[in-house]
């Protein structure tokens, strides 16, 4: 399943962002509209690199679909960054 929501949170000693829920599913519509162009560009790039365009497309799609479940939380030097992908 492709990512549908990302949650971002930033914090430092003076400022703290609210938890930002980014609805990635809203990007699907423009992504679908741009898909034919993106496929052409990807096909051109992969052919230039000597890689099968379908293989490149499949691998990128698999990568995108495996992103949900990723959580990153880093706190250093008094600053905090948190990223979650659902």
């Amino acid at each position: 399943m492709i990512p549908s929501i990302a949650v971002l949170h930033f914090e430092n000693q003076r400022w703290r962002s609210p938890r930002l829920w980014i609805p990635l599913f809203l990007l699907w519509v423009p992504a679908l509209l741009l898909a034919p162009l993106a496929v052409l560009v990807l096909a051109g790039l992969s052919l230039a690199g000597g890689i099968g365009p379908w293989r490149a497309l499949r691998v990128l799609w698999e990568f995108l679909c495996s992103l949900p479940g990723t959580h990153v939380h880093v706190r250093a030097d008094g600053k905090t960054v948190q990223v979650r992908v659902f």
Partner: protein
Amino acid sequence: MNENRRQILEMLAAGKITTDEAERLLAAIERGAGTVGELKGSAGGNGDARGTTAKAGCKYLRVLVEADESMTGMKGPTTVNVRVPMQLLRAGVRLASLIPQQAHGHLDQALSQHGVPLTLSQIKPENLEELIDHLEDLTVDVNGKEGNAATKVRVFCE
């Protein structure tokens, strides 16, 4: 002998699966992971049980790092908590396989300059798949202490 074991041994005798695969299937059945048909089916129907054990076992790789400010030189404690889906690791490996051959030399050189002496051309996708599958059994606990400073690193699958 139960039906599942008999099926595995028959497949082994017929040369449909290797001894390693038979061993993995037997271990999976002992753990109660499913029937031979289910295990084979979820592994793509080719008798390869490696993917099945990883999928059934753990879904994420967790990396936890905690370090004192005296260790890092930064203000306050430093903590890193990263959870990466195993599927993302697999996809990353496949993504790396898209790197054109011409770029391997440049990447090897850049990696070795940054202290990672890795030769990309020597890494085969099938070896990396196996490595990821075996990450299921991985647990690394490092407790470093230097003077009053302490660092704790944990890497495990969950």
